[in-house]
């Protein structure tokens, strides 16, 4: 593996696991796939193949993963919906890595995404010089996915303008793309599908049309159900990330992860874990993904400016940034510090003091 690359795509990062699964395959493989649906599930949810241990990529809710995979076996497109940071893109990347061995056919949906980016555009220099030809075409990831019979990903589909979203309707129902300039019709090969992700916080910005929605099977990804599950996710991800980022700091202790997850869960739910006390919830999302980046941040702080072990000060700085996104969040955060954290006893007192110093 090339160590100079900041972030390797999933299929390279987990190449060994994928190869082991493909080698050990015994079940029938759908057209255009590299392995059977069952192996895809093993790759995502973890398990063992021969002597190779498969690390779990998505923790909790195995049934949702099954539904997602089963959807792709039929020729339906898959739409993953969830709060920010519920591993939608993560899951979609790993699904395509396992099924096609290529997770890079991605279109990032933004307010500026155009129809051409979803279908095809032209190399204008060539177009003017030679006239329309296949060589002058710039094919979109969706186009190439149709040609080779693979899965294309569309991130944050609800950020795109509605007319751009609706381009997908004909692609998904006809399963062919036409290029009138060349009087060309490209039918999709077997195995073509689309995985789109959408954010519940964007609901109402560019709502998907009913016609388009109907062509997707919708899977809603929830926030982790229990504290243990969330800690598990945070721990595995921080380990993976810190390895590739060379942070020069020790991995956070379980107690630290537990504190962070507790704070995040309580603020997210608006009540303490024992459900005895109400808590003011800040406006931010406080996703699991943020908890992960917070810990990596603290590790970077500790590695570059501290002793190499994460201290309460390192975490406090990260927490402040994660929780207080708007002015009024300060109140919620201060209340939480005084009413909940202060009363949690000696184990929490270090973190409490560090947090309070930042708020004075």
């Amino acid at each position, binding site marked *: 593996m090339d160590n100079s690359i900041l972030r390797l795509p999933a299929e390279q990062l987990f190449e060994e696991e994928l190869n082991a699964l493909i080698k050990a395959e015994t079940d029938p493989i759908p057209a255009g796939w590299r392995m059977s649906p069952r192996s895809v599930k093993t790759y995502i949810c973890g398990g063992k193949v021969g002597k190779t241990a498969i690390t779990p990529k998505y923790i909790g809710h195995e049934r949702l993963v099954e*539904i997602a995979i089963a959807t792709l076996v039929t020729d339906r497109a898959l739409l993953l919906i969830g709060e920010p940071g519920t591993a939608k893109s993560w899951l979609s990347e790993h699904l395509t890595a396992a099924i096609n061995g290529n997770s890079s056919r991605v279109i990032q949906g933004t307010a500026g995404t155009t129809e051409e980016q979803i279908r095809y555009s032209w190399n204008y220099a060539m177009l003017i010089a030679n006239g329309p030809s296949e060589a002058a075409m710039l094919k979109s990831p969706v186009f190439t996915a149709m040609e080779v019979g693979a899965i294309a990903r569309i991130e944050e589909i609800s950020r795109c303008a509605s007319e751009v979203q609706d381009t997908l309707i004909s692609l998904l129902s006809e399963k062919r793309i036409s290029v009138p300039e060349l009087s060309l019709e490209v039918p999709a090969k077997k195995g073509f599908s689309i995985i789109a992700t959408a954010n519940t916080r964007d609901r109402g910005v560019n709502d998907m049309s009913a016609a388009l929605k109907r062509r997707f099977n919708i899977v809603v990804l929830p926030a982790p159900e229990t504290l243990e599950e969330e800690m598990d996710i945070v721990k595995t991800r921080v380990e993976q990330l810190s390895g590739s980022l060379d942070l020069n700091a020790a991995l956070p202790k379980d107690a630290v992860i537990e504190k962070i997850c507790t704070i995040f869960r309580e603020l997210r739910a608006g009540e303490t874990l024992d459900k005895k006390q109400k808590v003011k919830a800040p406006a931010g999302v406080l996703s699991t993904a943020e908890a992960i980046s917070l810990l990596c941040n603290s590790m970077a702080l500790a590695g570059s400016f501290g002793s190499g072990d994460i201290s309460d000060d390192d975490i406090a700085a990260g927490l402040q940034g994660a929780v207080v996104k708007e002015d009024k969040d300060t109140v919620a955060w201060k209340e939480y510090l005084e009413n909940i954290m202060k009363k949690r006893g000696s184990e929490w007192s270090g973190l409490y003091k560090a947090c309070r110093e930042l708020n004075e």
Partner: protein
Amino acid sequence: MNGVNFFGIRHLSPAGGFYLRKFLSEKRPELVILEAPSDLEDTISDIIRLETRPPFAILGYTQSVPVRTILYPFAEYSPEYQAIKWCSENGVQLRFMDLPTETFLALSDKMIREAEQDSQTSEKPAEQKPDVYELLAEKSGDDSHETFWERTLEHCADAEAYHEGANLFGKNIRALTENDSYEEEETALREIYMRSVIRNAVRSGVSPEKIVVVTGSYHVEGLKTWEADESLPEFPKLPSLHTLMPYSYYRLSTRSGYGAGNKAPAYYELIWKGLCRNDRFYAANAYLSKIAENMRSNGSAASSAQVIEALRLARSLAQLHGGDIPTLSDIRDAAVTCLGEGSFSAISAALADTEIGTAIGEIPEGVSRTSIQDDFYRQLKELKLEKYRSVVAQDLALDLRENLRASSERSAFLDLERSYFLHKLRVLGLDFARLAPSRQENATWAEYWQVQWTTECEIVLVESALKGDTVELAAAFQLKENVEGQEDISVIAKAIEDSFCCGMSGAASYALSALQAAAADNIPFKEIAKTMFSLSNVISYGDIRKADCSAVEPILKQLYYRACLIMSSCCVCNDDAAKEIAAAINMINSVELAHDILETEDWVKALMEVSTRDDLNTTLSGLCTAILLERSVMSNDQLKTEVSRRLSKGVPAELGAGWFEGLAMKNRSGLIARLSLWESLDSYLCELDDEEFKRALVFLRRAFADFSSGEKDSIAENLGEIWGSNGDEVSEVLNAVLDEASQETIDELSGYNFDF
């Protein structure tokens, strides 16, 4: 296998029912032996009658207290039911082989007693052994053992596969389980008994090859050794009775767990229908179409395309688990994904309807009636209520007074007797007659009921057999049950009220002594009020119901006195709690007005204290002032003083508004008509300087917010009189919609700072 044919089943398994019939038709046995209590054989003749329609159940219950029960529910697709039907259609002899119900009940009685003792002696709960069914679910990769069973056995392609599969399943479960001692003991006893029945059958001359034994798959291995002679132990017994009763899918689904119930009876019926049609995908197709239909009829969109997509998803989910036919969990998840757009709650109602359903069974009239049913039907006839036993809802108006033109005493009080009877049913939770709110103000002699008969009523009635042999005895038992261990005195008081409504003053005495005991403790104010209200009802309705209420009065007095003493201390509370207290104060006030036996003076003193003290919740102070005004205890001068004191400068605006709100809670028209109030309000406002007026305006506006425009008219008239101007003009100003300029002024006020 010593020649005897064993067919292992699972209760309420459609494939079991279907393949068992095939198996029987193939083997053509002379005798079928069924795993069911041997003393229930007498119900067979009723079960096979044409009028009997599943779901129904056989209920066994002990005659002595505490009542223990055992229930055997049957659905159309129950293998046992199909076996019974097959035998009657083919004229084959049928026998039940399990322990008689009286032994089952004795065993369960013993177990409950032991469990009670255990929980008393040892505080640590027994160590949990890993459950074999959970283990099974884990190993199979399915979400539960139900899904595993459905995938592997309910969707079997032929009888042979089911027969062998079920027997193997039972054998392995048996090998794996090390149950706790009680269950093992019970299983051993049952199997000894069942083996002896098989042995006796063979000895009576039926050749073993011509016998089919139908039993839970777990027991197949245990029964194979029937040949060996063994002596029967002494079986414990508790005298018991049993009856056939109609049952419902809903009840079936609430009693889930191994054997006794089934979480999705309507879905299993679909599997049964699919088997009968030889269409293996019928259940999935029908299930999804039904959900779509249900969604459409409730106004949501659900297209056929979505149903087709859901079906394809369900099948690919099944394939992921190595199956071909989707199971309930596959279909349900597919429905959530495709029809519910990923959200379970969007289609949860449709799911419940499709999985559980509303089917209710029927049994022929007059079959195996319990004594309470007999009593019920006898009284229905005596009270001339039979025509109301219909599925169409009817209204019934009762006049509880003596009918002076009637010839006999019985008919003179017919309506009163009817009322007693219907109230007893109400106490038993029998949803036959519902008491409608009285249409006449304070009429103590009229009652309006809505009467409608459903099969659910029959079920509840049969279950009430456990409480007593007649409706009256059962109601008495229920009333006692309601009071037992109850600390909430208002609940006890409700029971007392119920007893009097049922015409059972005797039953009330138990509740009364419970109330007396509980009333000695500290009780929240609002509980006292609710209790007093119930007791007050008892006393006021007592005459008409010919009840003796002398025992109730002392308790009412005691509570009343307590209420007067603690009221002022209860008025220290926030506005949320004040709403409840206010309701309580109103209740006590009306109780006090209704009964002469209560000392008015105590109440007025308590009201006066709350009304004049400044440190209590101001809304409540206002309310008490209003009550005093209503009772004409407070003079106009006193009111004037109160108004100016409550609204004076030192008082925060919030409190002033709260007080006025409290004042306006009661007898508004009386308040409006009181000219002196408006005079003092007027003079108070005139005294204010501009800044103070702004402040007062904010809270007065709030206090008058919920007055109707008619009421505002009357206020305008009053003010007009005070100011010597035309009432109509003032009214026009008061009721006018705000123009932009004044709206702006008021908006400015909304940011008004009260802290000074």
